[in-house]
């Protein structure tokens, strides 16, 4: 049963610390998305990649957030330095972009981040 995995599932850290979240997309998928979910803002798209290349990261605060795909099986989202307002659930999703928007995205279980 292919699924997106994310680690860690929960992270508590102090303000100013670096946080790295990891995502393993479904094997064969060529598109990876990072979302942030909060009560106030709902689901926000932070960044997405196709064939490991960043296509859009306009939703991400550039000064502290960075997203990369070192290889096809790993996507990372890093926050440095972290701030309390970064507390949220971060979701990774993957998909197979064959015919544009016709394809669904498969979501991971999320990383719940708490910054004290």
């Amino acid at each position, binding site marked *: 049963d292919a699924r997106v995995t994310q680690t860690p599932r929960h992270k508590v850290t102090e303000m100013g610390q670096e946080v790295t979240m990891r995502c393993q997309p479904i094997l064969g998928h060529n*598109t990876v998305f990072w979302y942030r979910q909060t009560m106030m803002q709902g689901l926000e798209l932070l960044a997405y990649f196709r064939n490991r290349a960043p296509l859009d990261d306009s939703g991400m605060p550039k000064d502290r957030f960075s997203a990369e795909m070192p290889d096809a099986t790993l996507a990372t989202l890093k926050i440095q330095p972290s701030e309390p307002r970064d507390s949220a659930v971060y979701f990774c999703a993957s998909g197979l972009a064959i015919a*544009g*928007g016709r394809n*669904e995205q498969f*979501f991971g*279980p*999320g990383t719940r981040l708490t910054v004290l």
Partner: protein
Amino acid sequence: AQSVTQLDSQVPVFEEAPVELRCNYSSSVSVYLFWYVQYPNQGLQLLLKYLSGSTLVKGINGFEAEFNKSQTSFHLRKPSVHISDTAEYFCAVSSDSGAGSYQLTFGKGTKLSVIP
């Protein structure tokens, strides 16, 4: 640009009663429409999708949705809900950007609470 409006943030309904969750979208191009469900402490999973063809789409767990182009709506319905349907439901829209990449624009979500 595209957007999604879910008119109800919370919908309480008694068990075995019917339910309709409303979704309206705006887009200047042809769209693909999705409903996702999020159970507590989990990621999002696809309920159903409209890509083309019949405007009535059937999904998992007895849910269905109808695409209405003239009213730009994609309302989700279930004739008889169960306690296990208690979750948050997200409507989403995407379009083929023509570049082979795609994004999902999500609504704010509707929390369905099924009352015993």
